[in-house]
């Protein structure tokens, strides 16, 4: 057999090894190419004036003084920009009932959140542009701000959009079995809690940035951007700026972190493209940190009324909840702001076997920054609802949290199977992950330590989570709903005349190591030294068409396309070699840049020599042989809506009952992401993800006052996890390959962020259990801990 299915019959040189990323060498020497590093001839800067109010009518804008200021080239109001763009609407057809009005890049008549752009100055320097901003005179009429998610739904609430009868954007209900009837039975113990999840945001260290250039002779718009999905943005720019798609080029070089923040359509970036077209010159916009805090999408912001019913033996009868989530004044385009809620409805309880489920999701408009998909979309909420309620139920019936999981987790031999909500699962390993977790953390020793310390008034807690993670999305995720978001990805592999491999892919790199794993796969499957593989990603002009990097799809989908393309090129090269060597293709193989005899390993011809015959001395080949030495393959997930990854995690914390501070003593994560292509990269993805989860659980919150003013929009006031508070994180793996691909890889990027918050809340509640109180609000700040302890009012 020689098909790609046999690729893993032999040991691999690179796949499965912790090879350092080759592109890190550049970044370590200050040679990154981030957007703000770019200087183009005649480049000018776009500087935005933003609404200081959360909700205000714009009566008039006087830009006459600003236009005269030093360095100012042009000034545009929201109305000016609106003339050059088709507005966008953040709805998808597979989320029936979702409503959101047409949105323009800049506010036109009404500003609906603090930070919404209302005017833009184009200036020779950012500093001069900021001077000129002060000369724009706007007459605002402040309108009542709608800030609280629950109040927003009351009939008394002011409306954010007058054409709607309420501030509700979307509502969905999911029902399986009959929860109400099941919970009415005598043997069911019901636990109810309200769980609150604060608003936080991505805080990518590189802020959003774009340089847009327009070349009139070609009618070509080039957008360099710090983003994740170049082809999606190409479509959006073409559609809304009324251009031919082929005349729009989107390029993402090095990106300083993204985490979902940089996969959306932002008005200031679209306006920058419009201005480049109008002025026919390059225009740069780089958000400053204040702009990032009030315009980058925010995440979470949920109030959930949850209940779980269990029997005395710990078996789950059912789960139910009502989720209210605030999304700001619009649903974000084009992915919508309803996906997180939808994920919560789909994923809650997914690791467990139970019959009855009743979940309601309410997506609500408010006058705050837009909320949309951020790393681990919906996962931290879904995992906290099921696992924190489960551990609470375990406490009520006096059962160990591990035992109650063992009782309810879907057995590892039950796949393929479906959840109560209809999610289809295959190749999962909840029990194996839990077993491994208990081994690496030494649970029994921690329990002994906990008991000993409690006697001394030290409150330590151990908390778990069993999680699923949505990765490798198929067209069922966005494409089916009409979004211009490719679910398939492509890879092209080309042999050059020197015997080196040039590969390109439509998945993108933001630091997670996409380029590195593509390089590993191509080198291994084709048979060259990894140093001879050059990777190109992030440019719509040169890479195959595809979705980019989001929802942990880079390795699983982009990697499989690269495997298929590399294998196809290998077969092509062996066909040529067979002619040159007068052998049969199946007798030959490629190893370390040489065509070799498969059985003896004897070197027959180097790839460079073979390529030179093809490219330079084609006369030596038969006339009917015209080798291309290039192959492209595309891949999409076909049998499932997405490929689920699973894992188990545990946190060990100490709660200082005098100060309310929570110290994380250690964190453990066991992940089953299928085949691990580069263990070091995967482990650090998980660690980084866990730390983002810790951020949301303990520190990070966008604090708003009742007028919709964000109170902590600086990095001095908004707390992010820093090194001194972070625990050591032990990572281990179970590898159950997904059968949906040859590579067998599932995503790993969401797990830490999706799972850590529930594990931490469980650990804190485990610590506080002897004090008869609990924490049900994230972030679990010292103040909230002291409040829960009754030490402050």
């Amino acid at each position: 057999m020689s098909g790609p299915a046999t690729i893993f019959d032999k040991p691999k040189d690179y796949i499965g090894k912790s090879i350092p990323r080759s592109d890190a060498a550049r970044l370590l020497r200050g040679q990154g190419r981030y957007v703000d590093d770019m200087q183009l001839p005649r480049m000018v800067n776009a500087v935005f004036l933003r609404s200081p109010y959360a909700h205000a009518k714009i009566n008039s804008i006087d830009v006459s003084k600003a236009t005269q200021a030093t360095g100012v080239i042009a000034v545009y109001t929201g109305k000016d920009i609106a003339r050059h763009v088709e507005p966008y609407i953040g709805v998808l057809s597979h989320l029936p009932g979702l409503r959101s009005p047409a949105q323009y890049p800049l506010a036109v008549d009404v500003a609906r959140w603090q930070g919404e752009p209302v005017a833009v100055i184009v200036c020779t320097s950012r500093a001069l542009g900021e001077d000129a901003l002060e000369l724009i005179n706007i007459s605002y009429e402040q309108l009542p701000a709608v800030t609280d998610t629950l109040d927003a739904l009351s009939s008394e609430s002011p409306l954010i959009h007058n054409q709607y009868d309420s501030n509700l954007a979307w509502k969905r209900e999911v029902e399986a079995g009959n929860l109400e009837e099941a919970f009415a039975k005598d043997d069911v113990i019901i636990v109810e809690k309200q769980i609150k999840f604060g608003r936080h945001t991505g805080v990518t260290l590189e802020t959003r940035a774009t340089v847009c250039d327009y070349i009139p002779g070609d009618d070509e718009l080039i957008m360099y951007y710090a983003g994740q999905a170049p082809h999606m943005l190409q479509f959006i720019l073409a559609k809304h700026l009324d251009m031919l798609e082929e005349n729009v080029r989107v390029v993402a070089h090095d990106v300083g972190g993204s985490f979902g923040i940089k996969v959306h359509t932002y008005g200031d970036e679209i306006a920058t493209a419009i201005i480049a077209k109008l002025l026919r010159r390059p225009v740069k916009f780089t958000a400053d940190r204040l702009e990032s805090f009030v315009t980058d999408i925010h995440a979470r912001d949920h109030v959930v009324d949850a209940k779980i019913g269990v029997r005395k033996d710990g078996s789950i009868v059912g789960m139910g909840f009502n989720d209210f989530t605030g999304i700001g004044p619009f649903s974000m385009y084009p992915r919508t702001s309803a996906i997180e809620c939808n994920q919560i409805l789909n994923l809650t309880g997914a690791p467990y076997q139970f019959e009855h489920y009743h979940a309601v999701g309410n997506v609500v408009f408010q006058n705050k920054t837009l909320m949309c998909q951020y790393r681990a979309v919906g996962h931290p909420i879904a995992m906290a609802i099921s696992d924190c309620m489960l551990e609470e139920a375990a406490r009520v019936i006096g059962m160990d949290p591990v035992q109650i999981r063992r009782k309810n987790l879907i057995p590892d031999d039950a796949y393929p199977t479906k959840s109560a909500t209809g999610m289809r699962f295959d190749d999962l390993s909840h029990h194996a992950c839990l077993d491994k977790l208990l081994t690496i953390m030494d649970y029994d020793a921690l329990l002994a330590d906990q008991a000993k310390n409690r006697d001394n008034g030290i409150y330590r807690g151990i908390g778990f989570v069993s999680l699923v993670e949505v990765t490798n999305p198929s067209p069922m995720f966005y494409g089916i709903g009409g979004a211009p978001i490719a679910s398939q990805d492509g890879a092209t592999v080309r042999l050059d005349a020197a015997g080196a491999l040039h590969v390109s892919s439509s998945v993108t790199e933001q630091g997670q190591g996409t380029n590195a794993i593509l390089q590993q796969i191509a080198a291994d499957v084709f048979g060259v030294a990894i140093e001879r593989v050059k990777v190109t990603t992030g440019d719509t002009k040169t890479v195959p068409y595809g979705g980019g990097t989001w929802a942990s799809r880079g390795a699983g989908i982009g990697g499989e396309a690269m495997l298929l393309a590399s294998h196809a090129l290998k077969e092509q090269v062996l066909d040529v070699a067979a002619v040159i060597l007068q052998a049969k293709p199946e007798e030959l193989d490629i190893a370390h840049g040489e065509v070799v005899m498969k059985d003896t390993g004897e070197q027959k011809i180097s790839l460079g020599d073979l390529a030179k015959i093809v490219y330079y001395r084609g006369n030596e080949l038969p006339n009917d042989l015209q080798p291309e030495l290039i192959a492209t393959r595309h891949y999409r997930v076909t049998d499932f809506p997405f490929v689920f990854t699973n894992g188990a995690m545990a946190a060990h914390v100490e709660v200082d009952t005098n100060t309310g501070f929570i110290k994380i003593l250690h964190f453990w994560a066991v992940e089953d992401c299928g085949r691990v292509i580069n263990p070091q990269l995967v482990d650090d993805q998980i660690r980084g993800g866990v730390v983002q989860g810790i951020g949301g659980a303990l520190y990070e919150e966008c604090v708003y006052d009742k007028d919709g003013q964000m109170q902590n929009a600086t990095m001095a006031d908004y707390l992010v996890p820093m090194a001194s508070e972070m625990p050591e994180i032990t990572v281990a793996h179970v590898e159950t390959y997904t059968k949906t691909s040859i590579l067998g890889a599932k995503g790993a990027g969401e797990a830490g962020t999706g799972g850590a918050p529930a594990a931490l809340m469980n650990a804190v509640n485990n610590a506080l259990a002897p004090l008869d109180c609990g924490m049900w609000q994230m972030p679990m700040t010292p103040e909230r801990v002291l409040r829960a302890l009754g030490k402050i009012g």
Partner: protein
Amino acid sequence: MTKTSQIVVTVNGEKYVEDVPVRMNLADFLRTKLGLTGTHVGCEHGVCGACTLFLDGVTARSCLTLAVQADGAEITTIEGFETDKNASDLIKNFHNRNALQCGYCTPGMLATSIEYIEQGNPADREKVKEHISGNYCRCTGYQAIVDAICTTIEERQG
């Protein structure tokens, strides 16, 4: 507001004489006037640490330093760490241990790490964490960075 002043600085061993707006910060000066874009700006208020570099041998936040304040100074940026700070072993260990992902915090993280090592501090994980706790990294979770710094110290101690 556009008043300028002439400054003389030595950056990574190379001398520059430049007219700069008096309100321009050192990070913007290096990035836009000298094209040394390895120094990154993350917050512009001295909190994230990305812009950290060496100013006359001491770490400084270049977003909180005006370019005119650097007149006469010797500056070492990430572009010079390998040669002027003899940090090739630290850079190698950052690379091998994957102590960076997006690379945006890396200039400041390296500067702070070099300072810790140069001061003769031990390969003590808690002390390293404390020392780098003024440098924000959103990607790694910090563990790999602490590993790389400790490995470098241990290797230097033989």
